[in-house]
């Protein structure tokens, strides 16, 4: 997703002179390097100084520019939190705050580099929009949206590298604020967002062998949330599985559970979210997710 971000922002930035990139000590690889070389005035490395990155981004947006503020998610949202809240959200200005390597992606770096609760935190700030694309294609759409149509601050939560795109004939088009169906199914439904959606497709393949048909949805916009679509999904399915690389507090599972009450859903909801705990596991992301009870095996077992 890093590469997709750099490529898309370079493409958009070529035509739109209002696009600025502010990074906090992130090495400009690939197309990002080209952006820096080609538009040195619109590429600003603020250094290891996230508070000033947010403030400066706010100032740029207040002159009509379209800044993207980019760093590892924990340093994008948590470190300068009050600047995000006041400069971006209270003032309600269209700045895109990009949190890269979100969730448990940086498992081997430890808890200092994880964002288990970023969606919960970002969602709770008035005016903030929260986007978490599931693949590079969705990310491209998110960037396009933030570079033009969006008129509010956005927290754009992205993965890191190696993500696959899940786009099929039956896949719906990406639309801001709308849940997107990726593949059709009839028996159970999986709701997910972000790169962890990969597990939904792994589960689908296993269930296929058991003759269970799975429908998969990407809930890429966490705020504002597509309530109407969930209502329809509640009507269609008796069993819904949620997979998310985010805390059980304030993420997709929380949202859907509260809507289940509102819409009087009587089926079964199985939620695979991160536990409200600081687990450590430095081998890889999958091993850390297992500690949180999130694995293909665990999901299959629950069905």
């Amino acid at each position: 997703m890093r590469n997709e971000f750099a490529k898309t922002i370079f493409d958009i930035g070529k035509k739109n002179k209002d696009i600025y990139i502010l990074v906090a000590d992130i090495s400009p690889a690939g197309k990002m390097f080209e952006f820096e070389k080609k538009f040195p005035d619109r590429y600003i490395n603020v250094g290891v100084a996230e508070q000033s990155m947010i403030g400066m981004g706010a100032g740029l947006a207040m002159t009509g520019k379209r800044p993207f503020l980019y760093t590892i998610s924990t340093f994008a949202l948590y470190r300068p939190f009050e600047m995000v809240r006041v400069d971006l959200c209270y003032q309600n200005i269209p700045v895109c705050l990009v949190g890269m390597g979100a969730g448990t992606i940086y498992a081997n770096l430890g808890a200092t580099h994880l964002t288990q609760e970023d969606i919960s935190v970002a969602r709770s700030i008035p005016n903030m929009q929260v986007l978490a694309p599931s693949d590079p294609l969705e990310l491209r759409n998110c960037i396009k949206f933030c570079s033009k149509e969006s008129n509010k601050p956005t927290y754009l939560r992205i993965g890191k590298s190696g993500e696959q795109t899940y786009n099929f004939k039956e896949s719906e088009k990406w639309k801001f604020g709308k849940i997107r169906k990726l593949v059709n199914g009839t028996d159970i439904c999986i709701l997910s967002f972000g790169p962890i959606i990969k597990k939904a497709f792994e589960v689908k393949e296993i269930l296929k062998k058991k003759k269970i048909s799975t429908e998969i949805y990407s809930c890429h916009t966490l705020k504002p949330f597509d309530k109407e679509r969930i209502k329809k999904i509640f009507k269609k399915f008796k069993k819904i599985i949620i997979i998310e690389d985010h805390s059980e507090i304030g993420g997709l599972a929380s949202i859907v559970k509260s809507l289940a009450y509102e819409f009087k859903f009587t089926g079964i909801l199985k939620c695979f979210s991160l536990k409200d705990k600081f687990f450590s596991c430095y081998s890889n992301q999958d091993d850390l997710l297992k500690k949180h009870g999130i694995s293909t095996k665990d999901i299959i077992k629950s069905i």
Partner: protein
Amino acid sequence: MMKNIYTKNNTLTKESKIRCNYFRKKILAISQTVPALHIGGAFSSIEIIDVVYNILKNKKDKFILSKGHAGILLYVVLNYLKIITNTQLKNYCKKKGSLGVHPDYKTPGVEASTGSLGHGLSIAAGLAYPDKKKTLYVLMSDGEMHEGSIWEAALLISSKKINNIIVIVDYNGLQSSTWAKDTHPSLNPIHKKFQSFGWDSVLCNGHDVADILKKLKKKKNKPFALIAKTIKGYPISFMKNNPIWHYRSPNKIELKRSLKELEKYEK
């Protein structure tokens, strides 16, 4: 009163003194309609803000009140410039009003929502960066210098050569609770801190308009920080350097005394 303010025959300094007295009286009048306002920190910034708005600033330039707790002073000045209406000012901190203690981005003439200290300078960096022809004035307090974000921004501004920024520090020496030098004696001398961060910086008398202007002329091709020595509550004798006037409205007797002192001061 307003006629006096527009007197053209007086010198720059004399005119400013009349305006500043008008602002102080206006703030005193408003203080009688609300339970509390930051009178001390507003009075210490008056000559600085008058110089910026009524002498230096052109249309393109922008001003950020990073020490947002002096919001009442900004409103009074914006009202004087007819950017904020009399009705708006009358409804300051009232149920049907739109003006609160701290400046709000939605208010005409207010460039940024401040009140939480340490935000204004980074925002100014973003406002100043794309158009180097405009000047960004940022008024901060010396207590605000304790915020780490100020030094992030100071570093960023000089490193990226955002030279069209002028910071004025209202160096009144008092925080809300105590003397700033008791909390952080190492902060002084502030101008040397700015210099070591790649800025030009000098000291001045923050209540002497001629001195403020003279020192601001020293700005060359670097971001510039003017450390304006001021007195909290100036020039009211019983308010000067008294921490209780950080956040207090005078009672009727104190108001009478203040107005009397201001009459004398103007002469």
